[in-house]
């Protein structure tokens, strides 16, 4: 009786592990396919510079009812002088059909801030990366929950 119970338990556990392993083997590919595409497109834009977390703030709604117009503002903690300024800000949406949203190129003028409106196809992470005049790159990301996707159908 006790052996039978343990056998069933063992089988159940093994089946569970098997299913879990199968799910894990597939899941990361699906979950990261878009993130990898976003990483690739950013790597090209940054020319191999690895971004650190910090200095960049991305302002986005937490919930976007309409994915067709999602306002965003990117601000970078940096002066805008000849000696030190933000050269570029790149925005990517990790869950859109193509990750690129916009690239903004600055000169030492004004302040390190830009606002626009973008389309988001589904709930996803939006990432902003700033490339500074000293060659370093900084990033921030935020999730936006999208109620109605903005990629048409």
């Amino acid at each position, binding site marked *: 009786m006790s052996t039978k119970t343990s056998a069933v338990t063992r089988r159940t556990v093994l089946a569970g592990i098997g299913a879990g392993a199968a799910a894990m083997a597939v899941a990361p590919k699906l979950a990261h396919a878009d993130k990898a595409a976003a990483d690739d497109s950013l790597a090209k834009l940054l020319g191999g510079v690895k971004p650190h977390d910090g200095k960049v703030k991305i302002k986005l709604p937490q919930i976007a009812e309409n994915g067709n117009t999602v306002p965003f503002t990117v601000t970078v903690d940096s002066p805008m002088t000849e000696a030190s300024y933000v050269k570029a800000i790149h925005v990517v949406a990790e869950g*859109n059909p193509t990750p690129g949203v916009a690239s903004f*190129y600055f000169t030492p003028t004004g302040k390190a801030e830009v606002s626009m409106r973008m389309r988001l196809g589904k709930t996803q992470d939006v990432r902003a990366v700033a490339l500074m005049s000293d060659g370093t790159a900084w990033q921030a990301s935020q999730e936006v929950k999208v109620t109605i996707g903005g990629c048409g159908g």
Partner: protein
Amino acid sequence: MPTPRVKMPATAAKGEVFEVKTTIDHDMESGQRKDKDGKPIPRKIINKFTVTLNGKEVFKADWAAAISANPYCSFFLTATESGTVEFKWQDDDGSVYSTSQAITVS
């Protein structure tokens, strides 16, 4: 023909940082949509936006299909010299839409 609109001050004190708000009416057709017969609608977006002050580039942007229709873009400039700020939007089909605004810096 899309109509560009720009809002920025006509006068500014030297060294003052001011905001520039721009928009242009354009469908920004993403290329992802299909018409009622199920055929894909070809992509037609404004892919480049350039701002110059007296001919010198001060701000530039590359836009992808993820930019919303009637693209709105706001950014900041420092008042350094009087002159003309020119704005140019470049369409996928090669058309360029432009407008300009004078600024007097004192």
